[in-house]
């Protein structure tokens, strides 16, 4: 396995020690995002680069912007940043408000008259 690529001194606190910074500190105490819903599989992509007027962004915000140059789900962003989903939603809300990210929500359920989504996924799986 190639999971441990960083030099060992980077991991002086392992995952069992819990987060070094509490999640609510990352969100500055906020439990809800200012805007957006952010389903687990909502697709997030970076919409523009950070400019000088974008003040008030923390390192986690910037990490999301860097990460989402490739389109990722909310769950993937949370996993890569090693932050709880709730905290990531708050951070994404900040970024969405500033139009730094673009978010595509999934359709809530397959449309009644349309079952092509099932066939698409089945066919896709068969050819994998």
């Amino acid at each position, binding site marked *: 396995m190639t999971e441990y690529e960083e030099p060992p001194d980077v991991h002086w606190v392992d995952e069992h020690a819990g987060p070094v910074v509490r999640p609510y500190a990352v969100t500055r105490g906020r439990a809800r995002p200012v805007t957006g819903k952010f389903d687990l599989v909502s697709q997030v992509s970076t919409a*523009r680069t950070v400019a000088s007027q974008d003040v008030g962004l923390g390192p986690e915000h910037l990490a999301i912007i860097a990460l989402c140059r490739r389109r990722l789900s909310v769950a993937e962003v949370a996993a*890569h940043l090693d932050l*709880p989903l709730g905290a990531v939603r708050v951070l994404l809300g900040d970024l969405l408000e500033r139009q730094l990210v673009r978010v595509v929500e999934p359709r809530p359920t397959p449309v*009644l008259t349309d*079952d092509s989504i*099932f066939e*698409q*996924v089945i066919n896709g799986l068969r050819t*994998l």
Partner: protein
Amino acid sequence: MDYEPSDSADRTGASGELMPTAVKILIAGGFGVGKTTLVGAVSETRPLRTEEVLTEEGVSVDDLSGIETKTTTTVAMDFGRISITDDLVLYLFGTPGQDRFWFVWDELALGALGAVVLADTRRLADCFPSVDYFEKHGTPFIVAVNCFEGARQYQLDEVTQALSLDPGVPVMLCDARRRESGKEVLIAVLEHAMRTHRRVSATTAG
């Protein structure tokens, strides 16, 4: 607002209608039944882990007496992704097996195409919370019996009986470690979900 010369802008049509870009299937079942193994076997990357933290405002099922008020419950979910096409990604979420994690289940089940209840015949009762939940919420599901070495091989109809399943619920054998087997399970749940979907559509339209 679009500065990125990417195809992703095309996903929102002129009417504002969203194209389907991400779908999910849930992998449920008891602790240690092989959910993460199955997710890992079919996903394009090793399983990722994400955590949902439940703060005290939603805690009603946990006994917190004698513990400080700021106690939180953390639920970890392992998940993986399969890129079907450039525009369509399938996510597989391993859902925590205990029914006290209902608050995560509700979010996970919303919009899910279907669910797989992974079963270990030595501990079939571990499936009950998952089966109950999906029956109650109308999520199409199948039961996949993970074949552990040393476990007695049950007949599939014995599993149906033991879990009091509706006869229409498919039950199949699988090996959660094997990619091909995992793919068969996913295809089976999608085919079942599609049949269910068509039946509901026909009823609603009529």
